[in-house]
């Protein structure tokens, strides 16, 4: 497969700028680049999700032209999105069948056999009748891979497939990908931020920066070399010293708490958070972190047990009560949950800080201006939030956090940020001196910033009191449910 002079613009942003590259069959190719470099855009163009503004795609020596993902698949190109694009309400079998061509009636029997055969070939365990919404991310990825293989793709694109799956699952995925490349002579394109993954799997790497192809490297190589290619300079990871003094008071205390929602059950939590402590939560999506954090903030009422904030029993109280006691929650949803897309920065500030009946808009405006400067937000007080870039939205969200909070409960505070911005955000957070509970899909981040770590697996919790005693790969195993 060959790309020739691909261009793509979104308004001012030149997301793909004259990209030409050749991919060979039988190889796994890594696509690297910082946030917003244009990786996903390029992959979507290849897979037919978006048209390029100009440029050509050649397959087997001929230019091809397709308009939608279905076309791309018929040309043998399939893409696995980071959040697999499947239909939660469908069963595994229906998801597998949907998109295949055939007569009006479904032939469930043959399709089932085909599905089971493919599962066996790759050692996947997928029950054809389970609704997809009940599968883990890893299983949904497996299903997508099998589905695309069932459709006969020759080029498989994976956009950040390793966020949200455990070390063991990752290993299995990588083995599968290797086999596909070697045994079936497929082309695998892997988009990732994780240099270790790329090093472990790929035969070749290309790097994008600001929409342009800036480098190309054959394996094996070193991490340092890759970093330099990506960022132009090397970034030192910071090891953080624990700030935790003995005898600091407990600010949040959970006793015998039982949490429950639809599928997940966390039977018994006994947990306390000390002033100034930073606790990292690791685990796959849907393992219980979200439930736990929301319970800490009073957004979910426990089935049983008591929750104390600064010694005060707040069990069953509203988020508002927790808020007043200094517990602040910020969700990872940003525009869905956290910010309001078409309200301005000033209005956000006013909501948070103007508690009087009549709003003093001048004061709110001035305060917004100050926060914008402090948090280095690229935007004006009267801009609606949706006009900001993702990174700037995250900065606004952090800028809205009050200075004197007792405890900050932060869901993926650096989601979608590049390493540089993430570090800056952490600097800001740590100067607040609040206790912090945060979750992250990035184990490095967990290891770097946490005084204690809690690993979640299917509603079970494992507390690691001293992060220095474990390695990232240990964490990876815990996440997979291997608690021993």
């Amino acid at each position, binding site marked *: 497969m060959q790309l020739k002079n691909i261009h793509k613009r979104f308004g001012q942003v030149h997301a793909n700028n004259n990209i030409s590259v050749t991919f060979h069959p039988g190889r796994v190719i890594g696509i690297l680049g910082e946030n917003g470099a244009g990786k996903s855009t390029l992959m979507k163009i290849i897979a037919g999700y978006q048209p390029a503004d100009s440029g050509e795609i050649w397959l087997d020596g001929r230019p091809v032209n397709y308009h939608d993902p279905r076309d791309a698949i018929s040309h043998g190109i399939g893409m696995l999105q980071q959040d697999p694009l499947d239909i939660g309400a469908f069963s595994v079998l229906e998801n597998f069948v949907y998109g295949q061509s055939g007569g009006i009636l479904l032939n469930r029997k043959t399709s089932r056999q085909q599905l089971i055969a493919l599962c066996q070939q790759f050692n996947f365990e997928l029950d054809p009748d389970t609704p997809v919404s009940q599968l883990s991310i890893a299983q949904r990825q497996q299903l997508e891979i099998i589905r695309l293989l069932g459709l006969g793709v020759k080029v498989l694109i994976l956009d950040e497939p390793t966020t949200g799956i455990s070390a063991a699952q990752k290993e299995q995925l990588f083995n599968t990908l290797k086999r596909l490349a070697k045994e079936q002579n497929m082309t695998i394109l892997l988009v990732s931020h994780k240099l270790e993954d790329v090093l472990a799997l790929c035969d070749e790497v290309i790097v994008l920066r600001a929409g342009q192809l800036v480098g190309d490297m054959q394996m094996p190589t070193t991490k340092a070399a890759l970093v330099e290619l990506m960022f132009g300079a090397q970034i030192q990871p910071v090891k953080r010293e624990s700030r935790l003094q003995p005898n600091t008071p407990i600010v949040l205390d959970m006793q015998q708490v039982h949490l429950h929602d639809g599928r997940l059950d966390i039977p018994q939590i006994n947990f306390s958070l000390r002033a100034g402590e930073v606790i990292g939560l690791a685990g796959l999506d849907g393992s219980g972190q979200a439930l736990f954090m929301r319970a800490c903030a009073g*957004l979910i009422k426990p089935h049983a047990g008591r929750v104390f904030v600064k010694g005060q029993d707040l069990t069953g109280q*509203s*988020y*508002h009560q927790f*808020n007043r006691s200094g517990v602040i*929650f*910020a*969700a990872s*949803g940003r*525009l*869905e*949950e*956290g*910010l*309001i*897309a*078409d*309200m301005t920065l000033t*209005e*956000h500030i*006013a*909501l*948070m800080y*103007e*508690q*009087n*009946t*009549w*709003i003093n*808009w001048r004061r709110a405006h001035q305060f917004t201006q100050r926060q914008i400067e402090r948090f280095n937000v690229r935007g004006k007080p009267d801009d609606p939030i949706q006009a900001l870039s993702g990174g700037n939205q995250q900065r606004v969200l952090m800028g*809205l956090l009050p200075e004197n909070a007792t405890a900050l409960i932060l869901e993926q505070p650096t989601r979608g940020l590049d390493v540089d911005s993430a570090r800056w955000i952490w600097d800001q957070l740590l100067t607040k001196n609040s206790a912090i509970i945060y979750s992250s899909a990035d184990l490095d981040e967990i290891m770097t910033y946490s005084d204690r770590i809690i690993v979640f697996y299917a509603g079970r919790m494992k507390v690691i009191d001293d992060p220095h005693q474990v390695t990232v790969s240990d964490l990876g195993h815990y996440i997979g449910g291997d608690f021993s």
Partner: protein
Amino acid sequence: MRERLIRLGFTSGALILALGVTALLISMFDHSPIDVLETAWDGAFKDGRRFSAVVNFWIPLTLASIGLVVTFTAGLWNIGIEGQMIIGAVCASWAGLYFEAPSVILIPTCILLGAIGGMLWGMLAGLLKLRFGVHEIFGGVALNFIAANIAIYFISGPWQPPEGGSAQSTPPFQAAATLPRISDDLQFNLLFLLITIGAIIAIGLLLMFTRWGLTLRAVGKNAQSALLLGVRTERVTLSAFMVCGALGGIAGAHRVLQAYSSLRPSPAGGIGFLALLVVLLISFRAWWVPFIAFALAAIIAGSTRVKTLLQLDQSLAGVLQGLIVLTILIFNGLADRLTRKDHHE
């Protein structure tokens, strides 16, 4: 500038289309649209009595519409406004029938009770939504029918006239409950006029300058985010229902005091639904309410005369009103599309 012209053009286009279709319908029934227009115009503006009829529709319609601006701002489809008006009317009627006091006390009491009744009925829709997850559209529709039956229950049951009821009316209210008119020509009530104008201004200002207004908007745009930004969303939602219900209740009180001086079945008379149309038409901008409401009130007043003299059914007014709102919504969409394209090019 160009965008403004396009919008103006499309809005006029929508109006012309709505009027054109209505004219066509009129012709289908062998009438001349011009005749109908003249008859309707006289029905609304011929003299003080006719004009008063317009004002007497305008008052409840504006009150209900301004209430709906509040709920729409909070992202709520308060289709139950009709029922809130009815319960307001029922509560006001109790005072009108049984609370013996001089006019200066009795009339404000009627209004206050109307407001309280409407507020509680609005709160019920809010609680159904918040506590039991019943969408306000369905809760509202059901509560409307229930309210209508409650009114009939009182009319044909506990409050029926002593000589036995026709299920049509309670006995007339006490003389003290008769609304004073401005003059023999201008047969509307000053107090209600002032309340209505006051409500427009108050709601407009509250929405723009108070924390309550800001929280309403936040909840309306994204309730979950608003909660995390420190808004007590349930309270805000409930308050929106209650304020809207209270205004609807006052509108209901006006209906029974002004139009009937007794309680009647469905005292709200579809004005609540018309108010929903008003608010959809102006995309929830409070300052426009009085003007649009006036236009629609004039259409209703005119339609009674059209029916009496030309035997064209009053539903013609509803058809015209519905057509106007529909075409304007659709033509706005067309204009959006056109101006959006402009941006891309």
